[in-house]
């Protein structure tokens, strides 16, 4: 008993240490950003005064509302588009019999594991032909496509878990398949859809490679991570405090959402991982 108490103390001490390590890099950037411009708060001392000058400087130099609004627009569109398609397809995969279902599922599975690098090159040339490079549509549509495998498997798992008796009862009552989906299953699915939407939003907000390739030249449609990447790329002639402030601006919306939705996000990511 004594040994296990000591073991427990060690375990919890390790957890506390791990928590500090997990928080430290971003906290040190936050402190740096909140310091006076030019001050290099090296992270172990709290700044003596809090200043927002770095933030206004970053805002003036281009990390302003524009990239944040672009990210919001892109992520929201990706979530809505993916949800609509994935609910319909997941319902069909879970409930209807049709030929080639296995083939379709394998194709989706490939997309789930495949790295984005496998598609970006032709994607760029294809979208260039269609005049969609450097547009919102050119960034949103491929992201919907690439989010679909995860979302369809997610919704399929949910619909499979609904009781067949319920669906049969609905059809005995004369409800069409679409009606069954809309009036019986969708209300039940709201929590699963909510978690899925949160995850899709997070992934879309953080997406970098697609943005780099598909909206490389037009600052007015660039998303927040891409803007931050370009911004910090020029840091040779800028203050680390300003770069830090820019990073905080990009991370803040996600962190605030995380504070509110962390339970849902974590369980969703773990559940999503298990499904993979």
């Amino acid at each position, binding site marked *: 008993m004594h040994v296990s108490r000591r073991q427990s103390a060690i375990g919890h001490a390790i957890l506390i240490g791990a*928590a500090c390590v997990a928080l430290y890099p971003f906290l040190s950037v936050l402190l740096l950003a909140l310091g006076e411009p030019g001050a290099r708060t090296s992270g172990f001392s709290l700044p003596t005064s809090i200043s927002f000058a770095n933030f206004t400087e970053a805002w003036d130099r281009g990390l302003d509302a524009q990239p944040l609004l672009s990210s919001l627009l892109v992520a929201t569109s990706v979530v809505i588009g993916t949800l609509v398609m994935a609910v319909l*397809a997941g319902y069909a995969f879970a409930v209807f019999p049709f030929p080639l279902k296995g083939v379709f599922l394998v194709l989706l599975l490939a997309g789930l594991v495949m790295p984005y690098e496998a598609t970006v090159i032709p994607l*760029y040339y294809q979208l260039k032909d269609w005049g969609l490079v450097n547009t919102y549509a050119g960034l949103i549509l491929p992201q919907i496509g690439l989010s679909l495998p995860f979302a369809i498997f997610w919704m399929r798992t949910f619909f499979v878990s609904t009781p067949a008796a319920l669906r049969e009862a609905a059809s005995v009552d004369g409800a069409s398949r679409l009606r069954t989906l809309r009036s019986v299953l969708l209300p039940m699915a709201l929590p699963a859809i909510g978690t899925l939407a949160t995850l899709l939003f997070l992934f879309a907000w953080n997406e970098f490679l697609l943005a780099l390739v598909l909206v490389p030249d037009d600052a007015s449609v660039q998303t927040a991570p891409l803007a931050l990447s370009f911004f910090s790329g020029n840091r040779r002639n800028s203050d680390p405090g300003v770069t830090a402030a820019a990073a905080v601006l990009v991370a803040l919306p996600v962190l605030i959402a995380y504070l509110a939705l962390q339970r849902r996000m974590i369980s969703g990511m773990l559940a999503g991982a298990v499904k993979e």
Partner: protein
Amino acid sequence: MSTLSTPRSGTAGADTGAGPGAGAAPARRVGASGRVRAWASRQYWPSFLYLLPAAVCYGLFVLRPLGQTAWISLFEWDGLTVGRWTGLDNYGELLGDSRILAALGHSLVFVVFYAVLPVAIGLALAGLMSRMRVRGLSFFRAVLFVPQILATVVVAVSWRWVYDIDGPLNAALRAVGLGSLTRAWLGDYATALPAVGLVGTWVMFGLCMVLFLAGVQKIPTELYESARLDGCGPVREFFTVTLPALRGEIAIALVLTVTYALRNFDLVWNTTAGGPGESTSVPSVFIYQGAFLTREVGAASALSVCLTVLVLAVTAVIMRLVRGKEG
């Protein structure tokens, strides 16, 4: 669009039907016409209507580019003029290119940092905390997950500051009298690779801890009691009870971390961009540079085909190992 997709699925169905037994014509024909009738009798087409939006989007923006990547990889192409057919030459050149092989070597190093280390750390903690109620688990879960939700660009910028010549790491070294060790960690040939690797360890270790802690709490305590009755020490107990019980979680963690390590564009690009020199180069950086900067599109496509095959193969092997043991 609907007229486009439904018949396409239809022909695909007929193909698979006719493919294996093309010789046994009469019996097949009945089957095929029966299938056609089933299609015609509205049995299946409503299902395909539900699939249609997703199928169109997925086909256009995932499957078609995927096929095109493989096709382009057979050409020498600068992205502007007409490409020249070179067959498998691009692949041959990849294998003979010492820069590519070096990049693959870096990827292996990253697998150690991104996958092996976090999984080992997580397992060690899980072994220590088995049979124990973790106090404040939901708090630790929330905090340990923070590296997972931050955009990789934010992670990269944060760590560039930590490793900066004026950054916290060097300040800490100076504070404990190790000022001679200070350097620009990401700009030094000797330290850039492990420095980027440790960022990956940082991104992944919390996920592994959370996964394994959650798993270890589900192991029935009777298993530990009987192991103890059999005279198992803590080490034997870990290998006979904890490790086998966590097999599923370990597989998930390995798939997530290994594929992340092999893809690994965002972090490398935003910390070192493959430098200094090419000391942290990875295949995905060469893919991006080849396709969009130096315009060797065919070679870049060949490399991304190889990367994709590698990622799929590694995933399959990990899943097979786990499934095999379960069965």
